[in-house]
C-alpha cells in the first residue's frame, strides 16, 4: 500500500462573478473526484472551498502512487485460440490486442472448470502520483466550463478563464505539484484578503489550508454565509422582531462579493419612506445589494443591511459612503416621483403618442386606444355590468400612462407599479389602480394573474393586441426572433382565459384585428385571423403537451378547432383519461373510425334509408342516434367525460357492423345506404375529437 497524503489545488484568480463561480464550484468536485478515480489514485473525501478570488479542492488521503497491478485475465478457450498447427487464431490475436500484450505472451492452462483457456498476464508498475496530479490539475483548470458566460484571455496568454488566474497553490502533502496555466506556475503559497491579509502566505500542507486562509482573513463560502446570517439575525434581534429581506439570488451574490464579511446597518432619511417602497427596495437590492429591514409589523423601515468586505474598524467610513449612495439615489427617485404626481394621468396618456410601440404598429397612444376597445368588448362578452365595463376601459386607458413618467424612465422595472400609485393619488377607484399595477401579469408561465377581473381584462387586451399586431404586420414570432415576447403573451392570454371561460378567443382576436385595421394598418384580416388562431392552437398544444397529455390526443382535440383554453384542456383531459382507462376500446374505436372515414363519401349525406338495413346496421344506426343526442347533451353542459363515454358506446355496434356487413356491395342502393350510415357514424364524433388521429401511429 502506498502512502497517503492530503491534496490541495487552489486556483487563485481576480474577482469571479457570483453565478459562474457557483457553477464552477459544482463542476470542480466532480472533475477532481472522477479525475483521481480515472488515474487510479485512491482518495478520501473531496471538499470544495471557494471565495470570489479562489476555487479550491481539498482531498483527504490521496495515494502517493498508483497500485502495482498483477492480474491474470482469461481469454477464449485454448481450442478456439489456436489452430491445428498451434498458431494463434483471430480470436487469440484479438484478445491479446485488447489486453495490450503480444500473442506470444499469451499463456495457456486449465482453469477451475476443467477446461483449458488462454490467459494474458497483466503487469502494471506502480506510478508516482505527482506527475499524474500535474496532468489532472492542468486538465481541470482548462476544462472548467462557463455556461451562459464568457471566459477571457489576459496579458499575452492564449489560455482563458472566467477572470485572470493569478496564482496556483498545488500540494500533495508538503510537496508542490508542478502546475502551469498560462503565465502562472504553482507554488505552496496562497494569497490573503486584499487589505486585511495582503500578500502571499505559505501553506505548509493541505491540512493547514483553511487555517492559513482564516489567519489571512479569508473565509470559505459556508463560513461567510454563516457569518452573514448570524449578523443579520443579531440585527433582527436587536430590533425586536424586525425582518431583514434577503432574496435568494441577491443573498448569494452578496456572499460571493466578499472574503471577510462584516454586517453593518445604514440608514436613510425618514422622508424617503414617502417614495413608493418598490423603488426603494429595487434601488437597494438590485443596484446596491443592500437588504431592506422591515419592522415587526412588516413595515419598511429606513434602515438597511450592508455586508462589507472592509476592515471592521472602518465601519463608520463604509456606512457613511453607502448612505451617500442611497441618499443620492433616493433623492433622484423622490424628485421624479413628486414631479410625476404633479402631472394628471390623462396628460401622460396623451404624451404616449410620442412613444413608439412598434415602428409599423404606431405609438403607445394608439396601442392604448386599441386596448380600450378590446377590454370593453371583452367586458361585454362577459355580460359584465356597465360599471365594470367602464372600469375595464378606463383602466386600459391609463395602463401605459406611467411609461412616460420620470420614475419609470429611471426605474424601468417598476412600470405598472408606478401607474398604480399615480392612479391612487389621482383618486381612481382601487380596482382600476390594481388593474394598472398588475396588468403586466402573468409575466411568465405559472406567474400570478391580475387579482381582479378589471386587471385580467386589461392584461388580456394588452397581450392579445401585441400578438395580433405582430401577425398583422407580418412579423410573427420565429424560433430565433420574438422581440415583443408574443409567445409569452400568448401563454398569458391562455392562463387568463382559463379563469374567464366565458370569453371567446376567436371573437377577441377578431376585435383586436378590426381595431388594428381601423387605425389604417393594412393587412388581409381573414388571412391573419387564420394565422393567429393557428398560432394560439399551437401554443395550446404545446402547453397541453407540457401537462403530459399524449400528443395524438392533443391532435385529435385540436382538429375540432377548439381554441378556448378552458374548453380545450377539459376536452383534452377527458379524452386522455378515457383513453388511459380503456386503452383497448379507444384503439379499436380509432381504427374503426379511420376505416369509416376512409370509406366515407361526404357527398352522400347522412340520411339513411331504414328499410334497407340488416340487423347489425339497425343496431349501429340506433347507437348513432343515441350517440348524437348524448354527445349533444354532454357538450352543451361541458361534460366532456360524458361525451367520451358516448363515443365509447359506439365501439361494439361499429365492430359488429364491420364484422357482419360488406360495405361495398355490388348493389349501388345498398352500398350507398351503408356509406350514408358510416357518414352518420363519423358525424357523431365531429364535435368531440378527430378520433381517427389516434390510429395513425399504428
Amino acid at each position, binding site marked *: 500500500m502506498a502512502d497517503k497524503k492530503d491534496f490541495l489545488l487552489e486556483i487563485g484568480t*481576480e*474577482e469571479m*462573478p*457570483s453565478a459562474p463561480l457557483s457553477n464552477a464550484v459544482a463542476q470542480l468536485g466532480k472533475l477532481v473526484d472522477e479525475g483521481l478515480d480515472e488515474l487510479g489514485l485512491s482518495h478520501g473525501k473531496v471538499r470544495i472551498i471557494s471565495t*470570489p478570488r479562489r476555487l479550491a479542492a481539498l482531498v483527504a488521503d490521496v495515494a502517493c502512487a498508483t497500485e502495482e497491478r498483477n492480474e491474470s485475465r482469461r481469454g477464449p478457450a485454448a481450442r478456439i485460440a489456436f489452430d491445428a498447427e498451434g498458431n494463434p487464431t483471430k480470436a487469440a490475436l484479438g484478445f491479446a490486442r485488447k489486453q495490450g500484450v503480444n500473442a506470444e505472451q499469451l499463456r495457456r492452462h486449465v482453469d477451475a472448470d476443467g477446461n483449458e483457456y488462454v490467459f494474458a498476464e497483466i503487469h502494471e508498475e506502480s506510478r508516482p502520483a505527482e506527475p499524474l496530479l500535474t496532468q489532472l490539475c492542468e486538465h481541470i483548470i482548462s476544462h472548467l466550463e462557463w455556461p451562459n458566460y*464568457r471566459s*477571457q*484571455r*489576459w*496579458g*499575452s*496568454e*492564449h489560455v482563458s478563464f*472566467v*477572470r*485572470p488566474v*493569478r496564482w496556483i497553490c498545488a500540494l500533495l502533502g508538503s510537496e508542490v505539484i508542478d502546475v502551469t496555466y498560462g*503565465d502562472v506556475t504553482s507554488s505552496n503559497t496562497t494569497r490573503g484578503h*486584499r*487589505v486585511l491579509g495582503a500578500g502571499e502566505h505559505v501553506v505548509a500542507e493541505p491540512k493547514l489550508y483553511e487555517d492559513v486562509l482564516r489567519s489571512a482573513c479569508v473565509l470559505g463560502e459556508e463560513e461567510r454565509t454563516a457569518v452573514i446570517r448570524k449578523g443579520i439575525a443579531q440585527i433582527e434581534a436587536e430590533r425586536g422582531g424586525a425582518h431583514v429581506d434577503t432574496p435568494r439570488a441577491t443573498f448569494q451574490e452578496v456572499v460571493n*462579493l*466578499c472574503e471577510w464579511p462584516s454586517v453593518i446597518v445604514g440608514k436613510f432619511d425618514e422622508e424617503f419612506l414617502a417614495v413608493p417602497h418598490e423603488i426603494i427596495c429595487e434601488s437597494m437590492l438590485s443596484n*446596491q445589494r*443592500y437588504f431592506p429591514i422591515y419592522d415587526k409589523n412588516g413595515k419598511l423601515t429606513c434602515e438597511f443591511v*450592508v455586508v*462589507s*468586505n*472592509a*476592515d471592521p474598524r*472602518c465601519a463608520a*467610513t*463604509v456606512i*457613511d*459612503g*453607502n448612505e*451617500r*449612495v*442611497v*441618499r*443620492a439615489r433616493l433623492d*433622484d427617485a423622490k424628485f421624479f416621483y413628486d414631479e410625476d404626481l404633479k402631472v394628471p394621468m390623462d396628460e401622460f396618456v396623451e404624451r404616449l403618442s*410620442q412613444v*413608439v410601440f412598434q*415602428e409599423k404598429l404606431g405609438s403607445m397612444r394608439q396601442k392604448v386606444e386599441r386596448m380600450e376597445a378590446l377590454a370593453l368588448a371583452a367586458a361585454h362578452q362577459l355580460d359584465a355590468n356597465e360599471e365594470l365595463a367602464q372600469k375595464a376601459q378606463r383602466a386600459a386607458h391609463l395602463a401605459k400612462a406611467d411609461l412616460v413618467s420620470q420614475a419609470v424612465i429611471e426605474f424601468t422595472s417598476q412600470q405598472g407599479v408606478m401607474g398604480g400609485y399615480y392612479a391612487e393619488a389621482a383618486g381612481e377607484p382601487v380596482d382600476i389602480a390594481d388593474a394598472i399595477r398588475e396588468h403586466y401579469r402573468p409575466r411568465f408561465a405559472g406567474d400570478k394573474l391580475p387579482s381582479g377581473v378589471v386587471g385580467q381584462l386589461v392584461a388580456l387586451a394588452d397581450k392579445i393586441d401585441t400578438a395580433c399586431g405582430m401577425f398583422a404586420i407580418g412579423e410573427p414570432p420565429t424560433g430565433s426572433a420574438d422581440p415583443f415576447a408574443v409567445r409569452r403573451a400568448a401563454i398569458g392570454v391562455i392562463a387568463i382565459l382559463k379563469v374567464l371561460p366565458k370569453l371567446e378567443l376567436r371573437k377577441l382576436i377578431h376585435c383586436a384585428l378590426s381595431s388594428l385595421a381601423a387605425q389604417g394598418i393594412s393587412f388581409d384580416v381573414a388571412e391573419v385571423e387564420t394565422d393567429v388562431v393557428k398560432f394560439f392552437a399551437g401554443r395550446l398544444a404545446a402547453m397541453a403537451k407540457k401537462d403530459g397529455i399524449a400528443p395524438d390526443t392533443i391532435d385529435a382535440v385540436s382538429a375540432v378547432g377548439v381554441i378556448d383554453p378552458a374548453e380545450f384542456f377539459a376536452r383534452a383531459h377527458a379524452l386522455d383519461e378515457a383513453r388511459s382507462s380503456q386503452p383497448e376500446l379507444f384503439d379499436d374505436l380509432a381504427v374503426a373510425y379511420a376505416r369509416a372515414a376512409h370509406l366515407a363519401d361526404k357527398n352522400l349525406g347522412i340520411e339513411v334509408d331504414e328499410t334497407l338495413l340488416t340487423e347489425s346496421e339497425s343496431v349501429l344506426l340506433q347507437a348513432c342516434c343515441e350517440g348524437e343526442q348524448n354527445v349533444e347533451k354532454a357538450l352543451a353542459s361541458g361534460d366532456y367525460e360524458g361525451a367520451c363515454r358516448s363515443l365509447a358506446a359506439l365501439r361494439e355496434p361499429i365492430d359488429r357492423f364491420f364484422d357482419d356487413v360488406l360495405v361495398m356491395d355490388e348493389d349501388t342502393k345498398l352500398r350507398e345506404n351503408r356509406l350514408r350510415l358510416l357518414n352518420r357514424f363519423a358525424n357523431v364524433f365531429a364535435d368531440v375529437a378527430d378520433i381517427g388521429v389516434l390510429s395513425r401511429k399504428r
Partner: protein
Amino acid sequence: MSTTPLSFQDMILALEHYWADQGCTVMQPYDSEVGAGTFHTATLLRSLGPAAWRTCYPQPCRRPADGRYGENPNRMQHYYQFQVVLKPSPADSQELYLGSLTAIGLDPAEHDVRFVEDDWESPTLGAWGLGWEVWMDGMEVTQFTYFQQVGGIEVDPVPVEIAYGLERIAMYAQQVDSVYDLVWSWLPDGTAIKYGDVFLENEREFSAYNFEVADVPMMRQKFDDYERECHACLDRKLPLPGYDCVMKCSHAFNLLDSRGALSAVERANYILRVRTLAKACCESYLAEVASKSDAEKKEVA
C-alpha cells in the same frame, strides 16, 4: 480621510504622476467630441496589434442626452474620465489600480473596495471585454475592463482599460453632494475655484443647445458627409483621419438622439452605420499601421 482632500486638478495631476511612474505615456485628451475615454485613438486603435503600450490621460466626455441644465447634482452632458491603458495587461493590474487610489488619498485599507462584475460591450465600436465596476464604500468609482475584441477584431495581447469617474471620486473624497461644489483649484489668496465656476454655465448652455437648438437637418447632413469622408480616407489607407470622422459621426448621432429626432429603427440604423465605419477603421489601422514594423510604415509614408 483626516488630511485635506485633493482638489479636482490635484487629483488629475496625482493620477498622471502615479501612472507615469508605471511607464505610461501621459497623453492629452483627444481634441474632438467623444462619448467616452475609450474612443481616444490612444485606447481604441492602440489596442490593436502586437505592440506593447501604456498610456494615461484625462478625457472630457460628451453625452448630450445626459444634460440637466446644471440642475442635477450628479449628472452632466460634459464630464471627465481618467483613462489608463496597460497593454499587455500586467499580472498586478489590480494592485496597481489600488495603489493609484492611495495616491489620490483614498487608501483601500480604510475603505470597502470591491470589484463587482460588470462586463462591457460597445455596439458602436464592435468591442467587448470582461471586468468590473469598482465600488468604494458602495459607490461606483471606476470601470475596469480586459478588452477581448475591438472593432470586431480579437485583441492579442490583451489590454486592460481602467476608467475613473473623476467627478464622483472627487465628490466622495471632498465630501460634497453636488458636483458643482467640488474644489477645482485655489487662487493665490486662498479662494476656491469650484467646478461650478468652471462648468455650470457650460452645462446650462449646452443642455439648451443639445435639447433645443442643435439643427437636426444639419446634423443629419454632417453625419452623411463625415461618413463619406471616412470612406474616402480609408480608400487612401489613412485610418487615423478616417477614425477622426467616425467620432464626428458619433457626435452628430448623439445630438440627433438628444434632439429626440430619431425613431427606434432609425436609431438602430445610425448605430449600425457608426459601427461599420469604426470596424473598417480598426481593420485598416491593423493592416496599415499596427501590424507593420517602423521600417514598413516609413515606406508607406
